[in-house]
Structures are given as C-alpha cells and as structure tokens.
C-alpha cells in the first residue's frame, strides 16, 4: 500500500494504530522514520505511550514487556449471595428458594450427601453388631 505523505497531524492520527502494531509494514516504517526525524513529535508519542502504559498498570492483568498478561489481584468482591437472593425473590422462590441451594461453600452438596449416607450405614452396622450377652443362669426376673 502506498504510504500517504506524512505530516505531524497525520502521524498523530496514527499514534494509536502504531502503538497497537495495527499498521502495515510500510506505513509503520514510515511513521518510525518520521518520528526519528521529528524529536518533538517523538516526545509526544512517548507521552502517548506512557498514558497507555499507565492504563495497563492500572489494569488487573498488567501487560508484561513480552505482551503477555500476568494475573494480578482484582478487587475483593463477592456477588453470589446478592445474586442468589435477587433471583430467589424475583423468581418467587422458584430458584434458590432454600438455603441449601444457596452458597454452600466449596464442598459440593453431592459430597455432603455421600458422607451422610456413609455415616448412616456405619451407624446401622455398629448398632446391629452389638452382641447382647445372655442372661446368667439362675437369674431371677426382677418382676417375680
């Protein structure tokens, strides 16, 4: 593509695309050469980049020099309880009507059910396996 004749204004209009590597090779090269020849505009471009870098630094996924994003902590927020409450109210109890369907932490309900079942089975077997000792011979029933 033929690169149009550049001046300060057209180069300024290309700052954004040049920064994001969205220009074609020839156009990018022309902008680079123009900035090299115009130190004042190059300073303006550096300030523009600094602003975008500052935006990146504000972002939770701060951009590393390689262009990759690193995970950074986001604002602490827990929306689940509020969402469940609103859904329960607006669905007139159709969804999230009981507290067990709500926020139960990180342990899934299925696991809780299995554990309760195991506990019940264990309790049953422990009760049936208790041996009843026979009454000693000659013992007289108390009621007599």
């Amino acid at each position, binding site marked *: 593509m033929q690169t149009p004749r550049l001046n300060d204004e057209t180069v300024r209009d290309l700052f954004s695309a040049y920064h994001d590597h969205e220009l074609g090779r020839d156009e990018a090269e022309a902008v680079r050469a123009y900035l090299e020849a115009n130190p004042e505009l190059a300073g303006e471009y550096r300030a523009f980049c600094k*602003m975008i870098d500052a*935006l990146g630094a504000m972002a939770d996924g701060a951009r590393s020099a390689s262009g990759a994003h690193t995970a950074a902590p986001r604002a602490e927020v827990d929306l689940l309880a509020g969402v469940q409450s609103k*859904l329960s109210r*607006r669905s007139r109890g159709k969804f999230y009507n009981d507290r067990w369907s709500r926020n139960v932490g990180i342990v899934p309900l299925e696991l809780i059910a299995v554990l309760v079942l195991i506990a019940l089975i264990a309790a049953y077997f422990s009760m049936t396996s208790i041996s009843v000792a026979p009454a000693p011979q000659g013992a007289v029933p108390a009621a007599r």
Partner: protein
Amino acid sequence: MNLDVEAERLLAERLKRRDQAAFNLFVRAYQARVFSLVHRMLGNRAEAEDLAQEVFITVFKSIDSFRGESRLGTWLYRIAVNHCKNRLKYLDRRMVKGHAGLDEESDRTLAEGGPVMSKVDRPDDATEGTELESVIRRALTLIDPDHRELIVLRDLEGLAYEEIIVITGLAEGTVKSRLHRARAALRDAIEKGLGCKLPD
C-alpha cells in the same frame, strides 16, 4: 479463574438446564472480571456491585439465547457492557453523573488537582506513575461513555480487537478509529486536568 473453551461449553449446557450449582460456579468464576469492568465503566463501587449482580441475573434469565457462537465469557462481557450503557444513561437522567457519582478515591484526586500536577511534572519522582494513574482515573470518568467503553475493554481489560468487535457489535474499522479518538480524548482530558502537556 479462567475457564477453557471446553469447560465453558459444559458450563453453558449446565446453565441452560438451570443447574444452580453450575450457576454458583459461574458467578464465582467471573464475578471479579465483571465487577472490574463495570466498576471501571461506572466509577462507583456501590453502583458497580448492584449492576454486576444484575449482569449475572440477566445471564441466568437469558442463557437459552446463548448459541455458542462466541465464548461464554465474551457473551457475558457483552451483557455487562450493555448494562453499563443503560445504567449510565439512567444515571445521566438522574443527574448523578460525574463528580457526584465518583468513588471517594476519585473525589480525593479531584480535591488534589493542584498537587497532582506538580508531582507528575517531576520526571524522577518515584510516585509519578501512581499520580498519573490518579489523573487518568479521573479523566476516564470525564470522557464520552462510548470512548470509555473502548479504553476499558482494550487498555484496562486487555482484550483483543476480535473480542472487542464481538462485545461491542462494532465493525473492525469503527473499533480502531473510535479507539484512536477515545485515546486522544483521554489524552486531552488528562492534559486539561494537568494544565499542561503530558510529560514524555
């Protein structure tokens, strides 16, 4: 938490069955991202929390319309952005836009307008970046919401152009030209706040 494509597909299927456990997982997985986006768009924590909850409720109600043509996360962002635009219009009508709607942090920045400028002007000041961020945060609330939307998506959320196109429904050329105008508007707002050109 970032879910891969297959995990998102399975999750979407469970959401369509109105699986409440899946919905809990979904909210936990995406609440930070949604809140972050909404907070940056609105500039007010209380409003952002309320609106982020509404975003998830909309997902719950309209998951059947998700056809899987984009990623679940991208679709969620689109809902969040639309909610933000509507809420901004509503707040605008209620005249709580701008100064009155800002967080304390932004208010503090406003109050410190003078000192911020002098600190940013010192090139070797260790706090320079932080102060510039404060000015930028303030300036972001002053620019047009359509411009803010693109800066938040591209420069703050770090999304690719392809994702922004899906989320906003804009053509590629429009995204690029509008993003350029948005950054230029932000630069102007920052320079207006500083009272001088951005230091290079």
